[in-house]
C-alpha cells in the first residue's frame, strides 16, 4: 500500500514539470497589446506600446507629471511604477526576444516635461532571480527627467506658425525672417501650411527642426514679378533651432531656405544641413522609441549616469570633486566619455584619482555585463585642460584587475 502510494506520489510529482511545456503567458504576437491590456486591466491606465526590433517602447501621458516645484509628482511616480511593473511582467513571460524597454511618461499640462525609464530586460530577470541586488538594479536603469526640447519646440513652432497665419502683432518683429513670404506678400494675405516637420534632439536642451511648408500669398504690387518665381502655394523650407533653457521663448534661431543677397535670391540646402546634425535622442515625438537600442549605447549611457552616482557616493570622492557634466557615446566601437569634473577646493586637481576611479568603475560595469564587443575607452575631462585617457579593452581589464597602474596609461 505504502509503496503504491509512494509510486503514485512520485508519478504525480513527475507530471508537475510538464507544466513547463504550457504556452507562455504573453505570446510574441501580442506583446504590445498585452502591455496595453495589463495596464488597463490592472491599473486602469491608458498607454501606447510599440516594438522596434528588440526594444519595447511604452508611452503614458500623465496629467500632472511635475509639481509646481518641477519635481516628479508622487501619484505620477506611482503610475510610472505600475506601468514599469506591467512591462516587466510581459517582457519576462513572453517568447518574444526583447532586450530593452523604454517607458516614457509625458506631462499633458507642462510643456515638454518628460520622465524616461530605459532598462535592459535581462537585468529585470536577474533581479527577480536575486542574481543582482535591487540597489545594483536601480543603478542599471537609465532615468531621465527633463524638458524635452523636441516636444517643447514642436508646440512652440506650431504656435509660431499659427501666429504668422493670424498675422499676430507679437510676431511682427520676426516675420521678415520668413523670406520671401512676408517681405513680398500683402499683409494679411500670407498663409503658411506645414507639410512636413522633422526634428532632431541635438543636445539635452536643444532641438533642431526641419520644416517643409506650402505658402500662399498675394504679392505687394511692387513684388508682382515674384509670382513667376514664387507662385502662391510654393514650397519652402526652414530650419528652426529650439533651446528649452530659453523658455518661455525657446526659439533660438530660424533659418529659411531662401534669402536675398547681393541683389539676387539665393537658397540654402537645409535638408543637407539638417542631415549633418546627429540626433542624440532615442524617443520620438510620439513618446515611443525611434530606433532599436543597442547594448553598447545602453552601457555608455549607464556609465555616464554611474559616474555621477560614483562621485556622489564614494567616500574618497564625495566632497572633493563635483561632476558638472558626464556624457557618453559609442563611436567606432570605442566608448567616449566626456566629463567635466572639478575639484571642490581650488588647486586640488588630482586627475589620477579621478581617472582611476572612473576607469575602475567602467571596467567593473563592462565586466558585470560580460561585454566585450568594444575596442577601447576614451575619457576626456574637459575641466582638466582637456586631459584625455585612452585604454584598450585588454588594458582596461588589466587595470580593473590591478595589473596595470595609472602611471603606465597613455595620456595626452
Amino acid at each position, binding site marked *: *500500500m*505504502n509503496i503504491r*502510494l509512494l509510486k*503514485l*506520489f512520485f508519478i*504525480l*510529482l513527475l*507530471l*508537475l*514539470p510538464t*507544466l*513547463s511545456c*504550457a*504556452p*507562455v*503567458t*504573453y505570446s510574441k504576437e501580442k506583446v504590445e497589446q498585452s502591455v496595453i491590456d495589463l495596464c488597463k486591466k490592472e491599473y486602469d491606465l491608458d498607454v501606447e506600446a510599440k516594438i522596434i526590433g528588440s526594444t519595447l517602447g511604452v508611452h503614458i501621458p500623465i496629467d500632472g507629471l511635475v509639481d509646481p516645484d518641477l519635481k516628479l509628482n508622487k501619484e505620477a511616480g506611482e503610475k510610472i511604477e505600475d506601468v514599469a511593473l506591467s512591462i516587466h*511582467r510581459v517582457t*519576462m*513571460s*513572453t517568447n518574444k526576444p526583447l532586450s530593452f524597454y523604454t517607458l516614457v511618461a509625458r506631462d499633458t499640462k507642462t510643456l515638454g516635461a518628460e520622465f524616461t525609464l530605459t532598462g535592459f530586460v535581462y537585468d529585470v*530577470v536577474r533581479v*527577480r*532571480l536575486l542574481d543582482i541586488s535591487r540597489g545594483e538594479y536601480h543603478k542599471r536603469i537609465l532615468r531621465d527627467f527633463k524638458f524635452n526640447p523636441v516636444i517643447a519646440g514642436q508646440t512652440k513652432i506650431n504656435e509660431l506658425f499659427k501666429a504668422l497665419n493670424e498675422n499676430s502683432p507679437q510676431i511682427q518683429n520676426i516675420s521678415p525672417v520668413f523670406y520671401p513670404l512676408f517681405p513680398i506678400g500683402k499683409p494679411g494675405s500670407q498663409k503658411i501650411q506645414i507639410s512636413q516637420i522633422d526634428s532632431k534632439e541635438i543636445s539635452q536642451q536643444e532641438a533642431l527642426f526641419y520644416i517643409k511648408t506650402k505658402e500662399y500669398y498675394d504679392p505687394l504690387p511692387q513684388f508682382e514679378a515674384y509670382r513667376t518665381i514664387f507662385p502662391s502655394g510654393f514650397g519652402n523650407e526652414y530650419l528652426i533651432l529650439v533651446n528649452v533653457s530659453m523658455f518661455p521663448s525657446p526659439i533660438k534661431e530660424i533659418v529659411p531656405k531662401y534669402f536675398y543677397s547681393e541683389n539676387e535670391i539665393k537658397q540654402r540646402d537645409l535638408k543637407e544641413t539638417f542631415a549633418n546634425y546627429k540626433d542624440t535622442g532615442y524617443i520620438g515625438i510620439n513618446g515611443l522609441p525611434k530606433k532599436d537600442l543597442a547594448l553598447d549605447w545602453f552601457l555608455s549611457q549607464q556609465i555616464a549616469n554611474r559616474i555621477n552616482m560614483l562621485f556622489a557616493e564614494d567616500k574618497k570622492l564625495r566632497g572633493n570633486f563635483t561632476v558638472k557634466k558626464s556624457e557618453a557615446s559609442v563611436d567606432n566601437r570605442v566608448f567616449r566619455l566626456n566629463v567635466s569634473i572639478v575639484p571642490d577646493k581650488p588647486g586640488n586637481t588630482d586627475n589620477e584619482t579621478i581617472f582611476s576611479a572612473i576607469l575602475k568603475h567602467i571596467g567593473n560595469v563592462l565586466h558585470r555585463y560580460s561585454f566585450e564587443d568594444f575596442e577601447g575607452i576614451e575619457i576626456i575631462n574637459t575641466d582638466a585642460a582637456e586631459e584625455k585617457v585612452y585604454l584598450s579593452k585588454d588594458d582596461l581589464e588589466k587595470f580593473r584587475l590591478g595589473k596595470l597602474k595609472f602611471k603606465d596609461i597613455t595620456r595626452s
Partner: protein
Amino acid sequence: MTLLTLRRFKMYLMMHKIKFIITFAVTTLLILAVWGLSSLESFYRHLTLAQMPITLLLSGVHAGIFVFMYMIFLRGGFTKIKQTTIKGDQVNIHWNDVIGIDEAKEEAWEVVQLIKDRTLLLKIGGKILRGLLMVGPPGCGKTYLAKAIATEANIPFISMSGSEFTEIFVGVGASRVRKLFKRARTLAYGYGACIVFIDELDAIGRARSFSFMGGGGETNSTQNQLLVEMDGLKEKDFNVIVIGATNAAEEILDAALLRPGRFDRKIYIDRPSLQGREKVFDYYLKKVNYDKSIDIGRLARKSVYKSPAEIDNIIKEAALIATRNKKDIVSYKDISEAMERIDMGMKHKKQMTKEERKMVAFHEAGHLVTMYILHPTDDVFKASIISRKESLGAVYRQPREELYTRNKEALLADIKVSLGGYVSEKLHSGTTSNGVLADFNSAMKTAHSMVWRVGMSDAGLVGDYSIIPPTQISESLKEKLNSETNKIMKTCLKDVEELLNKEWQIVERFVKELLEKDELEYDEIEDIFKEYGKTHYSKPAA
C-alpha cells in the same frame, strides 16, 4: 454476507484512515499546486518549477531531521514494532500439521470451538474466551498450535514477541500494547474475531515489582496496559482472543494475568511422548528423501525428551550430513550422527599418549559395562574415546522410556555407573586419574540427595534435611546422614568392583574395541554383550 462485506469495508477504512487522509491531502495539494502553477505567469511558473528539485530536497532533509529527532527523543529509536498480521486462511498451518502434542491439541480444539460458536455461547449467556496461555518447554509447538487455532477458526492472527514491547522509554511498551489491541479490535470488527499471539509472554508478564526507586516502571506499565486491554475488551463488539506462550513456569507470571477473565485457559504443552515423537519423526522425515527402511520407532526411542523443534533440527542436520557425504537419501546413520552432533557437540581429536588413551578407554569401558549390566532404566547407545568439548571420552546413555521419577534402584545404578570409570581405571593400572572428578561429583550429589533429601538411606532417616538451617541441625544427625551417604557410596563401589572383576574380560574386550575403533555404536555394543551371553539389566525376581 452483505453486512460482513460492509463491515470489512469499514474496517479497511479504519485501518487505512491515515493513509487515506495522507493520499487525499497529497492529491489535493498536488492539484492545488498544478492549478496554482498554471495560474502563474510563465516566468514565475518556470522559476517555481526550476526551484522545485532543491525545494523538495530541502523539504526532504527537514522532514528527515524532524522524523529522526522525533523517533529518537519521543519514540525510543527506529526499531519498528513487528506486528505480523495474517488472515486466518493465509496462516497456512493446519490442524493436522500440529503433531506430537495430542493432549494439548484436544484442549486447543475446545478453544477453536469456543471461538466458532461465540454467538451460541453469548446466547446461552456464557462468557467468551479472552485469553489462552500456553506453557511449556521451548520448541514444543506453542506457536504452531496458536497458528493452527487461527487457521481452524479462520480468523486473522497477529503475532508479536513479548520482548518487542519492552523499551528503555517508559510508556513506549504500553503504547505498543494499545496499538496492537486497537488493530486487533479493528480486525475483529471486520472478520468477527482476531487472535493476538504474544510469544515469550514472560518478557512483559513477569510478576510486577513495585520499587520506590521506580525500577521496572516500563515493564509494569506495559503489563498494566495489557491487563487493561484484556479486561477492557467489549464483549459485544469485539472478539479478540489473546494467546500467550511462555517457557517460564506459571509462577513467574503475574497473578493478575492468570486470573479468570484474562488468561482463562491454560494449556501445558510438554515434550512429545514416544508415540508423539514417532509422529514427529514421520512428519519431518517426509519432508526429506529418506531411507524407507529406517525404524522410526527406534529413532523415537533414541530421542527421549526431544522436542519437535529439536527433532526437526535433527532431520535438517541429517540431511546436511547426507548431502556432505554425497548421498541422495538420509539414512539412519546420518540421523544418528546428527543426533550425536547436536547432543554431544563436534568431535575434535586431542593428541593423547598411548597410555593416556588406554586409561580413557578403560574408564569409559567401566562406565559402559556397569551401565549395561546394572542400570534398570537407561541404555548405552554409544561409547567413545574421541574428545568432545571438555571430555576426553564418553558413554552416552538414554532412558529406555519416558520416566518422570527415579526410584532408589535407578539412583543407586546412577552412582554405580559414575563409579564404574574409577573402578575400571584402578583395576587396570592400580591407580586412578583426575578424570573421575565429574563422575565423583555426580555420584556424591546423588548419594547426598538420596540420604539428605529423599529418605533413601537404610537408617530410616526420612525427610528433607537440607531445608533445615545448618545451625539448627545437630552434629550427630549430620554425622549420621553423612555416614549414610558414605555407606551408599561404599556399597556402590563394592558392587561395581565385584561386577568389573567378574566381567573384566568384557571390559578388556571393550577397551580393545574402543582403542581400535574410537567409537562403538549401540548395535556393536549389543553384539559384544551378546557374544559374552550378557543381556540388559533385568529386574530381580521379587
